[in-house]
């Protein structure tokens, strides 16, 4: 293929647009973008913004799948735009929509406030089992103890798992996979002693018990965090806690 031919090759992006100032509801709009083999969906969106339509809005920053900003639905699947490459998508138009299950603020930008509140609600910090001063140095933590929670600490808060979770779609108050992974990240940490507090936070209807083990959350996770595992481990923990709670009550009487 000649160079000119490569340069004129284009790809169609069908983008779900929504401008709150003027639109009653979202609708699709198509753009033709010059295609190159190494182009990510994010780069295609940037090309649209820089050369075709500056009013298109989307979040992005690091470009390397670690900041978690650019989650969106690409051909119906929750993906990070920065590490989804056009060459790997089937030929034909690429459909891009805001992340499912979240309200759309504008175009590809969704509301993130509720998600952040959920993260904050599960005590996402070390509640030390044995408090130590800085002068006393670090805690010991063997590689095995690290491995027990390490994968859960890899969550980049991109919210793809929420977009994949049908239970969250039906019940927006469900604590959801990402926040549960974070909970397990701290509950599984050998330095932490806050397990009881966190279990109390997720025992209700909107806690672990909204999960029906669909498991797609783990499949769409770009960092292999396995939030489904975090939730289901905590179903067991929560159930045990429920019964132990009665035992403790009896003991107290």
């Amino acid at each position: 293929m000649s160079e000119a031919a490569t340069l004129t090759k284009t790809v169609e992006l069908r983008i779900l647009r929504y401008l709150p100032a003027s639109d009653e509801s979202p609708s699709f709009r198509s753009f033709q973008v010059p295609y190159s083999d190494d182009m990510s969906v994010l780069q295609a969106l940037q090309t649209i913004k820089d050369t075709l339509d500056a009013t298109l809005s989307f979040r992005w920053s690091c470009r390397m799948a670690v900041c978690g900003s650019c989650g969106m639905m690409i051909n119906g699947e929750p993906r990070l735009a920065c590490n989804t490459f056009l060459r790997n998508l089937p030929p034909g138009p690429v459909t891009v929509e805001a992340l499912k299950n979240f309200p759309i603020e504008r175009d590809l930008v969704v509301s993130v406030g509720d998600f952040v509140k959920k993260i904050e609600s599960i005590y996402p910090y070390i509640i030390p089992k044995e408090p130590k001063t800085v002068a006393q140095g670090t805690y010991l933590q063997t590689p095995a103890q690290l491995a027990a929670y390490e994968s859960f600490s890899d969550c980049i808060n991109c919210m793809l798992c929420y977009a994949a979770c049908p239970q969250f779609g039906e019940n927006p108050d469900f604590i959801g996979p990402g926040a549960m992974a974070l909970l397990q990240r701290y509950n599984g940490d050998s330095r932490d002693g806050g397990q009881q507090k966190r279990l109390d936070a997720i025992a209700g209807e909107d806690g672990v018990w909204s999960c029906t083990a669909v498991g797609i959350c783990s499949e769409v996770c770009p960092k292999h965090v396995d939030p489904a595992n975090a939730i289901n481990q905590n179903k067991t923990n929560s159930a045990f806690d429920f019964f132990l709670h009665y035992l403790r009550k009896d003991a107290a009487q």
Partner: protein
Amino acid sequence: MEHFEADVLIIGAGGAGLRAAIAAAEADPSLTVALVSKVLPMRSHTVAAEGGAAGVTQAHDTLDNHFNDTVHGGDWLCEQDVVEFFVSRCTQEMVQLEHWGCPWSRKPDGNINVRAFGGMKIERTWFAADRSGFHILHTLFQTSTKYPSIKRFDEYFCVDLIVEDGRAQGATLLSLSTGEFTAISARSVVLATGGAGRVFRQNTNGGIVTGDGMALAFRHGVPLRDMEFVQYHPTCMPGTGLLFTEACRGEGGYLVNKDGYRYLQDYGLGPVSPEPRNKAMELGPRDRLSQAFWHEERKGRTVETPAGSVVYLDLRHLGKAKLKERLPLICELAEEFMGIDPADAPIPVRPAVHYTMGGIPTDIRTATPIPGLYAAGECSSVGIHGANRLGSNSLTELFVFGHVAGDEAVKFAKGAPAVNAGRNLEQAKASAAKALALRDQKGAGERHADLRKEMALTMEKGCGIYRIGSEMQETCDKLAELKRRFANVTIEDRSAAWNTDWVAALELGYQLDVAEAMAHSALERRESRGAHQRIDGFEARDDEHFLAHSLAHYREGASPEITYGPVKITKSKPGERAYGALGEALESKKEATHV
């Protein structure tokens, strides 16, 4: 306009801003800390740091070693008293992060593990696989939620500082989600807005790294210090500029040219050894490695690709298991973005802009020339990096000086008189009106996206790895032209909610100011030092005239004026900066004379 009154205002919620917020909240829980970020805090660019953070840990290492490595690495342009303070605080900050839960990589016995890094004599880089910045940022963010006195303003963009009665008293913010303005009054203000690497074309930085805080302080009369020193990281992805951490080489990776030859031995970094050797070959400092690439390219010993010429980062001999354990993110990047398995094939790499050594000048307590205004992190120039930063010093800087900034801001706030709320609100309204005027101006159809591209190109051309006076002059002229054209920008999007077209234009305004400070500081420095290398008759370091900090002063409607300030030398007299065999020889000679 909404008006929020806080005691301490922190702008930027990356590593430095979050550390400052926690320090402030701990120093006095009764004070309200407003923490502003234009993104959710965990999106801040600290997230992309890979290799790790320095802190003397091993028994055979000393604070003096860390001091010497840093000052030599900075080509003696460091504030030595600040470096001494810095190295003495590093390890305790690392321990503090460990207590807050940072998943540092461990030795089999459960103790902290450290890895080798460029320009460091002894291994002292704490790491969390190759996602150190990510883990640190999330640890800090999550820990910060514990303090009720921290009131966050997520996704608020700062359009101006409020300086009233000769002291910093707040800032004017644009809420991205509503497009409405909020004024925050505070008795002290901390800038922690990060670097400005996006003014260059190929860079490792996230889209948000646009020098906002630097430009804000600059426009309020704070001179920007040492802006000509911009770090090129030697191992980045061609095209995108994404980073392959120095830890690749710390773990034992090789850099080879098109013939498979470890070319660094030709540039005073030998001898060659199969195992990594501290301060030699691939573990030389970043400026030297990027410069060596430039020479290889000139000699035709690099490989041409559509995204520019490349050399290879060869990690194959490390084996799959070690790569997966120590460098999982690198493997992921190579596999997902380039279709390369580093265990099977070498990774094509080239230098890209990574870090701004200069910034808002502060004293050892992080105070800027404006009373009540503090700065920490990459936006600041506290004086530890000099003319070239050593890898893994910048993450630690965030905590050491973020901590100091939080403490100092609290101290200042408690001693300061009440803010002038009425006057502050007036200032905020004026700033908001100015920002709105840019959004709504008719302009002449100039697109800011085009200006941004031209800026990035001219910065790369004139202020690259090696610099020539005439080319720097062209860059200065081009930037002046771009600033003129910026006045003619027409913004397509006139709406309020999530108007990223408008915000990008505001950011470009900041970038152009910062770029000018860089280019003019570079043009005026007629010597070669660290990351500033000239090949037009000023190839040598000139301590007589230029052992001095450059200071770029903002001038409305004109290019910045450059002056110079003294460098604090305490115990390390400027000497020859050498690595590899020569470096070792010089060091043993020095030790011998000391005995």
